[in-house]
């Protein structure tokens, strides 16, 4: 995307097939490069994390959202603003845990998997694991340690895609991980 144009609040449009195919090419290349699916999942998560820690700056600059006061507000911002801005979808938020520290994002349709059918020999591959990394990385930069994982996936025969997010703790110091 063009950096020179300056970042406004308007969202730039991108062809969704190009996006889907690009992500598909990335995942299949990883599958060729790594021996087993667990390594691919790990790698996707790592890449997502690296995207997330950068993307949060872009997100805060463009969306003008302020500080969130509780985790519920964070959930709303993620679903209604962040997903809308970057993927063009609005997942619904459900299954709050009684303590209010854990919730699910339900994606009716996941733009990453538009044409994808998982072959039988990749049954443990978490195809969209990049998203988990992005969410984890982004929230870490705003002092929230979270645990993100897929619990349902349309690629594995479930009717919806469900991402489970669990709040772990607030990160007190502003140092990024690994620099303590």
């Amino acid at each position: 995307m063009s950096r020179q144009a300056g970042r406004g609040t308007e969202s730039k449009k991108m062809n969704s097939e190009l996006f889907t195919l690009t992500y598909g090419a990335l995942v299949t290349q990883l599958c060729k490069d790594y021996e087993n699916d667990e390594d691919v999942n790990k790698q996707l998560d790592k890449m997502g994390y690296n995207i997330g820690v950068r993307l949060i700056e872009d997100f805060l600059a463009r969306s003008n959202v302020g500080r969130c006061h509780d985790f519920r507000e964070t959930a709303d911002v993620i679903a209604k603003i962040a997903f809308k801005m970057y993927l063009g979808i609005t997942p619904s938020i459900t299954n709050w845990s009684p303590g209010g520290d854990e919730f699910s994002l339900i994606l009716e349709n996941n733009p990453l998997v538009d044409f994808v059918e998982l072959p039988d020999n990749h049954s443990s591959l978490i195809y969209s694991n990049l998203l988990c990394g992005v969410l984890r990385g982004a929230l870490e930069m705003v002092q929230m340690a979270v645990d993100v994982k897929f619990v349902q996936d349309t690629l594995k025969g479930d009717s919806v895609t469900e991402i489970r997010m669990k709040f772990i703790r607030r990160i007190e110091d502003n140092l990024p991980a690994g620099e303590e």
Partner: protein
Amino acid sequence: MAVCIAVIAKENYPLYIRSVPTENELKFHYTVHTSLDVVDEKISAMGKAMVDQRELYLGLLYPTEDYKVYLCNIAASPCSHTFLHRYGYVTNSKVKFVMVVDSSNTALRDNEIRSMFRKLHNSYTDIMCNPFYNPGDRIHSRAFDNMVNSMMMQVC
């Protein structure tokens, strides 16, 4: 209704072939195979004109009646006048679709066949977009199977 649907690669080897009475499979392989000559003939005969119009549908290749004989001999089903019509469709990338249609009771209209081919083409495009599918491999896809099944079930 369609009794056999085949997708043939540019180099004329089968990517996908499926027929409804599975015991007659080999027979349909031959049927489709012989149709390919007609397809090639049609393509070269139309030549430039077709390419310019971007008309992918080749129309009726030729009708045969031999399926009837086969049914009587092997499956011992009641002898009815079963006509098989073969239709062809070729994409701009020279992938061919061949459909064998049983039209004994109802005459299928041309635009119905056309829309079936378009559905097939769209489905094939989706397969090609699957990052786990390598172009040129045989098609193993549940989505494609389902679509083909629905076209075979459909009573036109």
